[in-house]
């Protein structure tokens, strides 16, 4: 299976590139920061620890996956490894999906490693829901980073585009709330701005509703809401994969 071989090579590359050490450093950073702030908290110190650790680890997981995918893909392009791979009798889709599977597996491993310590602060079932959601989120980020790295072929533009998409997806709910809030003016310009924000929101995944810290602190999400959150990420990942394959097939490498 060429796709499996490609996925394995991505995992090997991630291990050799120091991903496990970076994951450990992220854990140390999150635990250190949470430990320090819980010392100065007057109440809810345990909740503060859990919330901060979850937020830091989520950001670290996403950043590590985006950086890994972008650097690995661009190195393959610039070292002419991609051209060599394409000269083999392997379909382009297999090549693209095989590498993506490797990156998704890296994200899932990070999600599992980062969810584990949270079990010290929250019930295991809620931690498991958070971890699975983080694995879906890193898969989406891997698909986005692969798409932008392949399309833009430069590190800074690719990582900036990935970060921009991710941050916008996490804040679009708040932006929509501001645009349609009771204090919003009833002018034509304000209405146009509101519609523009709604239109942008249609093209984005709702990442503010997934991998939520509230699931760890308060209660697990309802099954339907949780299913919708994961399905939304799966749909958007599929869109990014389709767009990436479309672009990859059109490229004359």
């Amino acid at each position: 299976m060429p796709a499996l071989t490609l996925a394995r090579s991505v995992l090997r590359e991630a291990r050799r590139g120091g991903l496990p050490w970076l994951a450990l450093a992220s854990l140390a950073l999150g635990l250190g920061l949470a430990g320090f702030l819980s010392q100065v908290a007057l109440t809810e110190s345990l909740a503060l620890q859990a919330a901060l650790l979850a937020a830091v680890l989520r950001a670290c997981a996403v950043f590590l996956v985006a950086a890994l995918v972008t650097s690995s893909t661009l190195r393959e392009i610039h070292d002419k490894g991609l051209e060599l791979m394409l000269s083999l009798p392997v379909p382009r889709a297999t090549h693209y999906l095989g590498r993506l599977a490797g990156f998704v597996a890296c994200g899932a491993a990070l999600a599992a490693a980062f969810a584990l310590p949270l079990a010290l602060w929250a019930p295991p079932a809620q931690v498991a829901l958070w971890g699975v959601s983080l694995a879906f989120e890193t898969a989406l980020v891997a698909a986005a980073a692969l798409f932008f790295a392949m399309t833009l072929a430069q590190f800074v533009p690719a990582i900036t585009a990935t970060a921009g998409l991710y941050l916008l997806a996490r804040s679009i709910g708040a932006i929509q709330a501001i645009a349609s809030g009771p204090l919003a003016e009833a002018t034509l310009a304000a209405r146009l701005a509101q519609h523009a924000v709604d239109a942008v929101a249609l093209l984005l995944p709702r990442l503010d509703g997934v991998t939520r810290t509230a699931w760890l602190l308060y209660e697990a999400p309802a099954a339907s809401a949780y299913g919708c959150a994961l399905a939304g990420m799966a749909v958007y990942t599929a869109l990014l994969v389709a767009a990436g394959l479309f672009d990859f097939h059109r490229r004359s490498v």
Partner: protein
Amino acid sequence: MSRALRPLAAVPRWVVLGLALSLGAQLCWQMTSSSRVSDAPDPPHPPGAQALRLASFGEHEAASRLAMVYIQSYPSLDSRLLGWLRAALETDPLGQYPLFLAARVYAETADTERARMALEFVYQGFLRDPNRRWRWLAHAALLAKHRLKDMPLARRYAQALERNTTAREIPAWARQMEIFILEDMNELEAAKIMIASLLQSGLVHDPAELRFLIERLEALEAKSGR
């Protein structure tokens, strides 16, 4: 991730000197120019709840608590701090930190005007979610009676507790707060009953809050023993 390195002697002296000087300059600069947050006379303008949500990128629970840890270094309540408390409570309505700060820190000041501001914040917050926030109003009622010596205010809070709470886990004394308030007991006795009941019911299990409550109780004991 290994890299072959040339010996230290390969680095020109002026580069080493430059590194040492720039590091020294950085340390000196920071030692002379850094100012701590607590040195600042006023807290910064509070963000709106929507702005705080936007800045948190969806991490509302962490942002709300971080904001509270940040503002607790300011010693007395004013309209700006009140804005921070409101924004934090709106950002994470299930969080208790803003109400804790208002009821247990800012309301226990000698400045009665500021204490009333804090108590009113607790009262308004209670009305939005009585079953989850009742203990802060119970404490507010005690403060109104013993610190502010304002019986009508204490009874108003007590009546609000009786009328608005429905959850079963709320202790009987809180649901009959008006009788508790009208009883002829001093602040230490009332606080002891309240804290013991909160501990027994398992409502307080956070180590930081337990430490805080015990310290407050000891301070009250020391004051009444004097």
